[in-house]
């Protein structure tokens, strides 16, 4: 039976969500919701829900709310109302349409950036409540297709981008050769047991940003760091399972990551400029595995760059001359307090820093993180329209002279790329690594 074309178009937007919802039964919805809310959630969840006085003071924390002209449906508590409160009020007896909307809200209208946690007078962790919704959506099999696909990749290959076992060391050796054209003695030490540092990246780097591995290798080499990278699984620190609510898979991934570092007997794990991966290894994955803090110390690139610059292991030949502005990524700033290190690094590398406002802990989210960009093309415009306020913030920084936007996080980088292009902000976006590589003293620079 052929459906009208219009109907088809309206559906088919997100096959994971549409098909998932079509398979649901009222009994399954009810049981899944109540299982998660009653059995998996504890007093923290209960206290958050019962303590909220419905004051709406979290609203202005949210870039979606601000970007939609203060539409209350986009306020943090508004999203909780449309999901958690209704599930509780109806004791799980909600329909498929509700689940579809809940999946859209939690996956594509919230970046889990936790800015709202800083605006709630009671410190209610609204992002945590949204992750509970994601957990329910996951258990109902209604996760948006694109991010679910990355989770499948994690499950099969222990990395986010379907990078196969041999492709990984192959890519490293390729980048090693490329870099040797610049520095003939450069190595990317694979499987060096007892090295001080294991360097870890997210799978998009070998997949389509291999030059970042090149740059990192040059920085490591020139700083004289004793480092290594694993040739086995465990090299990828990314974690979309954390964002789909697939905590079991998150645990598997992080165990592999930490066990790989333990196998290589490294003292520290240094990671590339990624925010969500930091959240996974420093905040969520390690805790799921039962570690209060990461079992092996995690050093984010920002911190690592600050460290080698402070120690004088890298000399800056000539500071980056174009004025830069700095985007504080939620996961490493609100999640790891690296904002002052980021400013130290910026000042060491660049002549002029033009602060955007608000900044540091109060910076506006990129609207890509939290797995939102990973939900893919169906939600791209929603993501861009949901962050008009970011464009306004960047325009203001540009008006005060900024030409380059530093975003030490992959998700922010990609998300802000979309924002900058859509709104015509006209800022060039760079990682710290890009600038560090450009301005550092190199042998035949």
């Amino acid at each position, binding site marked *: 039976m052929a459906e009208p074309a219009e109907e088809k178009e309206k559906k088919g937007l997100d096959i994971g969500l549409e098909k998932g919802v079509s398979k649901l039964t009222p009994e399954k919805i009810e049981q899944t919701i109540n299982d998660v809310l009653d059995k998996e959630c*504890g*007093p*923290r969840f*209960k*206290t*958050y829900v*019962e*303590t*909220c*006085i*419905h*004051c*709406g*003071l979290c*609203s*202005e*924390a949210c870039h979606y*709310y601000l970007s939609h002209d*203060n*539409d*209350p*449906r986009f*306020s943090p*508590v*508004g999203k*909780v*109302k449309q999901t958690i409160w209704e599930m509780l009020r109806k004791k799980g007896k909600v329909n498929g349409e509700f689940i579809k909307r809940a999946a859209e809200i939690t996956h594509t209208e919230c970046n889990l950036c936790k800015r709202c*946690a*800083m*605006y709630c*007078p*009671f*410190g*209610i*962790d609204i992002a945590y409540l949204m992750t509970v919704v994601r957990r329910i959506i996951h258990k109902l099999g209604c996760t948006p297709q694109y991010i679910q696909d990355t989770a499948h990749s994690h499950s099969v290959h222990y990395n986010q981008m379907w990078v196969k076992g041999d492709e990984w060391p192959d890519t490293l050796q390729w980048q090693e050769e490329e870099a040797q054209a610049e520095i003939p003695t450069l190595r990317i030490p694979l499987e060096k047991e007892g090295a001080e540092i294991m360097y870890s990246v997210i799978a998009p780097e070998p997949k389509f940003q291999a030059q970042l591995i090149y740059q990192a290798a040059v920085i490591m080499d020139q700083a004289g760091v004793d480092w290594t990278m694993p040739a086995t699984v465990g090299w990828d620190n990314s974690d979309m399972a954390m964002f789909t609510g697939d905590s079991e898979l998150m645990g598997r991934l992080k165990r592999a990551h930490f066990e790989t570092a333990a196998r290589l007997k490294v003292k520290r794990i240094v990671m590339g400029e990624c925010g969500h991966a930091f959240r996974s290894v*420093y*905040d969520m994955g390690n*805790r799921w595995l039962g570690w*209060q*803090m990461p079992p092996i110390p995690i050093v984010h690139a920002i911190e690592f760059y600050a460290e080698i610059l402070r120690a004088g292991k890298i000399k800056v030949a000539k500071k980056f001359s174009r004025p830069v502005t700095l985007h504080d990524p939620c996961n490493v*700033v*609100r*999640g*790891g*307090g*690296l*904002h002052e290190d980021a400013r130290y690094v910026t000042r060491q590398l660049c002549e002029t820093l033009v602060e955007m406002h*608000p900044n540091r*802990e*109060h910076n506006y989210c990129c609207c890509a993180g939290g797995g939102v960009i990973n939900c893919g093309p169906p939600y791209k415009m929603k993501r861009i329209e949901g962050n008009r306020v970011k464009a306004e913030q960047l325009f203001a920084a540009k008006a005060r002279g900024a030409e380059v936007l530093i975003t030490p996080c992959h998700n922010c980088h990609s998300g802000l790329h979309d924002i900058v292009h859509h709104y015509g902000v006209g800022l060039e976006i760079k990682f710290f690594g890009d600038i560090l590589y450009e301005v550092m003293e190199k042998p035949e620079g």
Partner: protein
Amino acid sequence: MHSVYSFVTGPMVWVAFGVFVAGCLFRLVVLLSQVSRKEPFIFSYMNLKWSLRSIGHWIVPFATVNWRRHPVLTVVTFVFHICLFLVPIFLLSHIVLVDEAWSISWAALPDGLADALTLTVIACCLFFLVRRIRSPEVKFVTYPSDYVILAIVAAPFVTGFLAYHQWFGYPVMFILHVIAGEIMLIAIPFTRLSHMLFAVFTRAYMGSEFGGVRKAKDW
């Protein structure tokens, strides 16, 4: 009227305070025992210094970004909560009753001041009511229960004000005032008024997370 008076100022007071105290203790014990059973990791992150740092910022008006963003609401909120405790505890008539019962007394507010503060509480309640109706982001998340708990809090002050001035049927207003106060006490542990108990814990946990793990400010 004597039997009603004796009932609401006698056994009902015991019931109200009993339910209030036992209810609060019960809620706290349940919270802590559930945390230790289901989410004991929370205790391992709780840290006095970071908790106090966070609580300290949030109990001072204008000490946080969000308080500064809403100056009127901030003033109203703080004035409201301060008066909410100040007036009933330091009201002369309340102290007189306690003194007559147990010979315990403490300094009282002058009645005129208490009267003004009572009006302040009522005005604050009206502000919250108007805000609930008029602000879209608040209205969107408002349930009938939100009006009910606002009424529960406002009622002792409205009736107390009318009883003090002996307007509109004095003895009935007195009885209503006592009953309203007792309803509020009983409601605290079992409604969202329990934020009186829990806000300090949620704030402390968030403060500990931000201070100890996230190394960031949460204000």
